């Protein structure tokens, strides 16, 4: 193996599993340490830098960071990263003076943002301080996109939502409500914009074309439209018996909303079995905790309507088997009628671009979607960018935010006459955390506590009112307990080969058998002859330069390091140091970070 280049930001970034897993590369361990220090405002602002909506995301994020958390490889459950984010948002102080401000002097460029979801809002957040004029067109009477219209208030209180949207709007966005863009051509021709960002989401709920659908129409609802109607007060009740078709996150919001609108016999109907459910595990738990039944292997066959009234639905009872091509095929075992007063369809969302003319230079590809560059977010028409769910179909808020950041970089470069393809690099800082002989600037003592459980509002009170937030959040005691579970993966074990005297101390002390000194070889083969076989090839294997006394190599399997710092504490020569790695994300209009420099590094000599 070649010696690992730890000065490439990707190397240490990947060790910070949560940050690597977060689409916006939120500096999770640092914000958790700030919470541990009681610095909620600082923690909130650190979050906001990358993910823009800490209060919203602290309740609703899809949490791609949690399943990849290092803790899941040491024990079962990840650090409650998301819920700690909410703690920072709930307990922060006044931040008005810390928020970015629109530039006083404008740069003369006008940007149109179509839709006011998280993607467009992020673009505005990043461009306003640079002097751009941002004009949002929103079809609905309020801003926020699906965060507002679809995520129910019992998961995301309106106050939290509006506060964070307003932080951006109040910077000086020009927003036109109830203004649906019906023709992109017209906007381009007559709007006088230097660039256009399409952040219109995936606004069309999928239909279920089975017999009886038309006849039953009065009591069959498209999930995302139905949730939107609830939000805007057009719907405030539902029948007692409700069937929700589909078992994704939308279905979870539909069934839980039904429970609050008067439904008391709610069934979520899944075509497949539990391992195939699209909903996040915690949403399934929350739904079941509200006495909602989830039925598996029920495939909708028809709606049953009598005398113009919906009576219920017939389902095929099925069983699934893999065929030769490895695809799952169903086998019908029987059928079953289930009574219902209302049926809610939550089987997916589609994009819809009837308002983008086909002859204006925007190429369309598969599924009638515009062709969008994965790195620049530009369409084939220069100056027109697409991000969020509109780009490649439904994702989630944090992806929409990251798309927004990247699109803002592109729009800025485009408007400044630079190539959108020159992506600004990430940078890094690396600073020793050494404070004394065996003292570090972080809490390196391993805490074996299991994940802190969330407490919920009393069931009856919760179901009685759509606006009562279900999760209570962590109190101080729970917060103090949970922050200690974080393994500080950003505090890196940084190695200086020429200091090592090959005493074995680090290898002997490592609690998780990460370290080995042995002769070099090919990575696959080296992985087999380490102190513990390094099976997880997703995780990097560090290789040092040749060691001074024996020319062996120090290898470190990054997989299970708990960042306890004991290798550095037991090293007589400080060949190992515990260094805080700070990933420097590029944002629009910023001076580029140094590419490979380990700035402010204090590698001990």
């Amino acid at each position, binding site marked *: 193996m070649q010696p690992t280049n730890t000065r490439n930001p990707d190397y240490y970034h990947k060790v910070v599993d949560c940050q690597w897993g977060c689409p916006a590369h939120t500096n999770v361990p640092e914000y958790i340490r700030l919470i541990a220090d009681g610095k909620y405002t600082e923690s909130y602002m650190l979050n906001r830098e990358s993910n823009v909506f800490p209060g919203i995301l602290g309740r609703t994020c899809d949490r791609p960071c949690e399943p990849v958390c290092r803790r899941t*490889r*040491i*024990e079962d459950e990840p650090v409650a990263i998301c819920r700690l984010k909410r703690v920072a948002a709930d307990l922060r102080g006044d931040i008005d003076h810390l928020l970015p401000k629109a530039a006083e002097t404008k740069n003369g460029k006008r940007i149109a943002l179509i839709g006011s979801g998280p993607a467009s809002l992020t673009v505005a957040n990043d461009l306003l301080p640079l002097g751009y004029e941002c004009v949002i067109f929103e079809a609905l009477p309020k801003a926020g996109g699906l965060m507002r219209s679809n995520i129910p208030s019992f998961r995301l209180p309106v106050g939290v939502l509006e506060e964070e949207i307003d932080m951006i709007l109040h910077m000086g966005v020009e927003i036109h409500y109830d203004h649906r863009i019906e023709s992109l051509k017209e906007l381009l021709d007559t709007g006088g914009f230097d660039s256009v960002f399409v952040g219109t989401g995936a606004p069309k709920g999928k239909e279920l074309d089975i017999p009886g659908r038309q006849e039953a129409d009065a009591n069959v609802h498209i999930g995302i439209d139905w949730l939107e109607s609830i939000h805007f007060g057009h719907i405030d009740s539902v029948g007692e018996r409700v069937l929700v078709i589909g078992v994704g996150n939308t279905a979870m919001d539909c069934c839980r909303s039904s429970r609050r609108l008067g439904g008391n016999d709610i069934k979520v109907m899944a075509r497949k079995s539990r391992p195939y459910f699209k909903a996040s595990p915690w949403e399934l738990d929350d739904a079941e905790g509200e006495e909602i039944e989830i039925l598996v292997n029920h495939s909708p066959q028809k709606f049953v309507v009598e005398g113009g009234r919906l009576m219920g639905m017939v389902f095929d009872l099925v069983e699934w088997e893999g065929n030769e091509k490895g695809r799952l095929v169903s086998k019908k075992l029987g059928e079953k009628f289930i009574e219902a007063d209302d049926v809610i369809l939550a089987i997916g969302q589609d994009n819809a671009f009837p308002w983008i003319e086909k002859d204006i230079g925007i190429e369309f590809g598969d599924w009638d979607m515009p062709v969008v560059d994965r790195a620049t977010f530009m369409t084939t028409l220069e100056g027109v960018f697409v991000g969020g769910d509109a780009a490649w179909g439904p994702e989630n808020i944090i992806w929409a935010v990251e798309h927004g950041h990247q699109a803002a970089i592109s729009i800025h470069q485009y408007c400044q006459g630079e190539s959108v393809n020159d992506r600004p690099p990430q940078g890094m800082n690396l600073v020793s955390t050494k404070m004394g002989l*065996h*003292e570090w600037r972080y809490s*390196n*003592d*391993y805490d*074996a506590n299991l994940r802190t459980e969330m407490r919920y509002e009393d069931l009856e009170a919760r179901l009685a009112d759509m606006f009562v937030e279900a999760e209570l959040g962590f109190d101080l005691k729970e917060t103090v307990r949970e922050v200690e579970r974080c393994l500080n993966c950003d505090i890196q074990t940084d190695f200086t080969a020429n200091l090592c*005297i*090959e*005493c*074995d*101390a680090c*290898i*002997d*002390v490592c*609690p*998780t*058998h990460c370290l080995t000194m042995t002769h070099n070889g090919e990575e696959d083969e080296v992985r087999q002859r380490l102190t*513990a*076989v390094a*099976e997880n090839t997703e995780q990097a294997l560090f290789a040092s330069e040749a060691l001074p*006394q*024996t020319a062996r190599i120090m290898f470190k399997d990054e997989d*299970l390091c*708990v960042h*306890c710092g*004991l290798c550095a*504490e*037991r*090293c*007589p*020569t400080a060949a190992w140091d515990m260094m805080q790695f700070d990933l420097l994300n590029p944002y629009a209009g910023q001076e580029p970070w140094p590419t490979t420099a380990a700035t402010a590094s204090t590698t001990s000599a």
Partner: protein
Amino acid sequence: MSYITKPSARHPRLPSNAVGLTVRDYEGSMSTLCAGCGHDSVTAALVQAFFELDIEPHRVAKLSGIGCSSKTPAYFVSEAHGFNSVHGRMPAIAAGANAANRDLLYVGISGDGDSLSIGLGQFCHAIRRNVNMLYVLENNGVYGLTKGQFSASADIGTTSKRGEVNEQEPIDPVNLALSLGATFVARSFSGDKAQLVPILKAGLAHNGFAFVDVISPCVTFNDHEGSTKSYAYTRDNMHEVIETDFVPLRAEIKTDYADGSVQAITMHDGSVVKLRKVTEQYDPNDRSGVVDYLSETRSRGEIATGLLFLEAAGADMHGFQGTVDQPLVDIPYETLCPGSAALDQLQAEWR
């Protein structure tokens, strides 16, 4: 000294041995020795050896005297029995304990000061008695605990950290052990676990006094240039004479070396120690040949390592004394001490 305890987090795929324990179950408390001390590596080698031999912790008794080396029993097999004696007196305690309960596995850990300076007499008699134990001498050439004075194993010409030169003849514990009839004599290096672990395992299996002299650098007081017990010096000058492989009883012996370069020695418990000569003409069963060979290598400035001498058969302390097979502790007190009537009767027989 580290302030935190070693994380309870473990590698999730750590193998278990025949008694259901992982290697981490053989650890002790966190070391308070200097970071980088060779003694900690010897500790880690012992942990590995106990794990690989499937030893039940409660069958082990750890004994030591005084010194940094003598502190190390605290850092392995925390579930074992232990006794920390007066400086240099561990051999007597070990002999006494072994006399009372011959069923335990005795592991004595000592230093060059503990065994060769203050405790030299004790050390010699434990060898003569062939007390059944593993005796590890963590040899760093200095009194580490009292801040680095030369010990009796300091070589002529080696310098202290402040630059003084040692002019007194050293005691070579390997030589001493051979001359006193030791039946298992080895030398190794804390920085070479591949060599040390099989030697420790063989020593634990040996019936009798198994002596292992481990060069174990004192990183704080004796790891400088000019020292003959530093990491760098030891690495440059050590010369492996014999490669040791330990084959436990239940494992099948696979290789047969037709060329005669490997000698398989069956131990008291049925396990096999395989010795592969690295050096032609070296015979680990020929006591006087080994002594000659070692004096030759020493004059060349080489540190000969490996399981240097082994005589698996022969009587240990209990054999010499003709004691009963049953450990004395298991014999009811009335039987061990039948009372004054029985004494009277005995004396009557002699009148």
